[in-house]
């Protein structure tokens, strides 16, 4: 069990079940808390909120970078378990150019298939980034269209 005490007025630790436990400045203990990034796409390291099981904010962390190393690593480990946004590195194959279409993709998390329900599930973000939401609600990211290989770009182009 790791306990962290710092200049911040709350405590964050793992409880017996392995879940994160939050203790506020008054000593009230909260189990089953959630860590939520305020800007998961545009500024992942800025603004992080600790939310209770009931959905109320317990603490606000303006910048993850300013946190003491221990808390930072604890939060990052938890977020790693919670956040799932595979980055598409290559589109190997698509089942059809008409939606719904099943894409065979290589991501930083390995090979997988995703089902694109409609073209409007592809969101254009700034700087040539794309956010693709598949049928099951999993978000896939394309960091830069220009940096994809020619084959992937050609396939992707048919949907943009």
């Amino acid at each position, binding site marked *: 069990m790791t306990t962290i005490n710092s200049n911040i007025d709350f405590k964050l630790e793992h409880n017996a*079940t*392995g879940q994160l436990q939050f203790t506020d400045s008054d000593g009230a203990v909260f189990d089953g808390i959630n860590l939520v990034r305020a800007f998961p796409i545009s500024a992942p390291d800025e603004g992080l909120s600790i939310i209770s099981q*009931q959905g109320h904010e317990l603490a606000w962390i303006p910048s993850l970078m300013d946190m003491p190393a221990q808390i930072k690593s604890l939060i990052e480990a938890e977020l790693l378990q919670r956040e*799932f946004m595979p980055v598409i590195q290559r589109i190997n194959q698509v089942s059809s150019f008409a939606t*719904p279409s099943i894409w065979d993709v290589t991501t930083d*998390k390995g090979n997988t298939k995703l*089902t694109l329900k409609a073209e409007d599930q592809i969101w254009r973000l700034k700087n040539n980034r794309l956010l693709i939401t598949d049928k*099951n609600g*999993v*978000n896939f990211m394309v960091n830069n269209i220009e940096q994809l290989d020619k084959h992937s770009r050609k396939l992707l182009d048919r949907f943009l």
Partner: protein
Amino acid sequence: MLNVVNSATVNSKILPPIPSSRLLPNFWQSIVESHLENAEELKAWLEINLDEQLHFTEHLLLITNRRLVYFCPVRTHADISDISVHEYAYRPALKLAQHDHAGVYRLDLFEHHLRIASWRYTVINDSSSARFIKQFEQLCASFVTGNPVPVEATEPCPKCRYPLTAEQDECPQCSSEIDAPPSTWTLFRLWRFAKPYQWQLLAGFLLMLASTAATLVPPYLTIPLMDKVLIPYQNGIPIDTDLVALLLGGLLGSALLAWGLGWSKTYILALVSERIGADLRTITYDHLLKLSLEYFGGKRTGDLMARIGSESDRICVFLSLHLLDFATDVLMIIMTAAILVSINPELALVTLLPLPFIAWMIHIVRDKLRTGFEKIDRVWSEVSNVLADTIPGIRVVKAFAQEARESSRFREANQHNLAVNDRINKIWSLFSPSVTLLTEIGLLLVWAFGIWQISKDEISVGILTAFLAYISRFYTRLDSMSRIVSVTQKAASGAKRIFDILDHVSSVPEPSNPVHLDKVSGKIEIRSAGFRYGNRSVIKDLNLTIEPGEMIGLVGHSGSGKSTLVNLMCRFYDVSAGSISLDGVNIRSLPISEYRRNIGLVLQEPFLFFGSIAENIAYGKPEATRAEIIAAARAAHAHEFILRLPHGYDSLVGERGHGLSGGERQRISIARALLIDPRILILDEATASVDTETEKEIQKALDNLVHGRTTIAIAHRLSTLHKANRLVVMDRGQIVEVGNHDELMASEGAYYRLYQAQARNVDTDLDDVTSDEIIANKEASA
């Protein structure tokens, strides 16, 4: 932990029909078999596709009648070298729990509140994991207690007869079909709509044959015109005027015949296709109206409108124009080829030789163009999206002085449109000159070979001219023929989108043996009702009996399940567990429209249809007399303000009811509910969106409405529920307190605190009182 059974026992093991929809993947089949013990039955399995670092890897979780087994590949380098097996024998304190976040599901195995294992996966089949957990619980309980697993009542999927469990509202077999990309074969399903018109279609087809044949006569007549008239004249023989008159008459006659036949063919077929399109639209719309609220919740209005409107139109145009043209062209090419071969096989061969080549070239260019045109379609929707955003929100744009920003947004979208168009125009502009060039080259070949044959006296000049006349006709048709590929694909995807609606079976089905209630007294009983939205439990084990004529106030913070409960009572959704009955009859066995006729619904946002005020009031009872309408309006305290309008009851109101205030619209919707004289009245936050003064007016109207009816009222402001016989306090899908105002105040529970909070500050919402307090209180009172 590891438990490997001798492979000699494999044969004696029973691998029962797996209760999951799919078969165990081959990869796992042998591994699983070798790990099962004698007489151990495989009950269910779940593919786990993420490892601890959330990388995509194949794992398998399965349950037997004795234990939970987890198979995990151990990776060394690139190859899977080994499979590690973890087993968890059933014991009393084991519990599975599922969480989900952003598409990733986590399954935790707890023993006495201690997490002993955790698996993650992206969901492949939503209901399968919920079923897996349920089966685990049942098997574990049965193993510990020794009681057999309760047999679940299953009803087959209405479409494919696949047995469904209680939690599955969509058949896994049928729903997977929806994911399949559109196929051209979908178009054949349109036959269902074409069948009523089969005789007209046959007549159209015969006319098509005849008219195509008629168009092929004139070139044939050029042969005698050349060989018997013009060439002999050049050689000094005078023109035979009778023959010329005959030939020219033939030309005119065949042209007139082709005109008449072509006209009647196009007319008949266009008539039929237009009817098919109309039938398709009406049937789809009728089916759409029957679908449950659940379906509409997941769809965008614009998308559904497009499907019924423009997609059916696209199919109609495809049938009446493209398919017709294509069939005519194919007929013409076959007939021409036959005529050419019959005149001179050698020249015919040379003439037809370039045909496949030209067709292929055109196809290639078309293919390039098609992707470009699809792109233009999407860019267009981008442009119109900017408009759709800005025009309804024009007040906000102006208020924040952001006209310049919206203008630049539009300019940007337009610029994108321009760029895409520029690119496609490059190919497009090249296209028709290229087709012309290819046609010319083809003609050149025919000229060259024809001259060579004439020089050898194999054919006459007349035959060459006839050939040239024939082929220049169908070379030009090749271009339009090549279009068939893309229009067929478009029509197929349109047909698929329409059949998606038609294939969707309502999750609120009509009863097969309907029960009719003559006189409804209005007693509602809810017995251990449960409702899941996806895999989220919204209502849990809820029991409530409402006596005829009783008024119930539903209280609770937003998300506590009040509106869901009301939706269940209206049967917009069906309960996933338990039952709701009216006068002792399960509402699932009553015909839907007959049941709903007993319910008057007043919503927070009153919806007025385009039409007069009188029509809007009489919406639920179109045959109502004027006197009835006025009586309802009077009772709803709407009569006076309606009379102040320039056209009284005939004043037109739009969908947003322009010109009417929120309170006025609400009173019209109350009059609408009053007019049908329902036994059950449901008020869903009827006074939430109006000010206190108006609320008093509406309250008076509501008091008239409530009188003598079973009423269920949802309200944020507790003061509006002062007339309620009982107040029901809900939290997280459960009832936490029931009683009248005085009782609940005396018990100083959750309601007491809500009331106190509102008394301090009139505008306090229930949401401001945390649900923790309600829970804390519930535990204290228990």
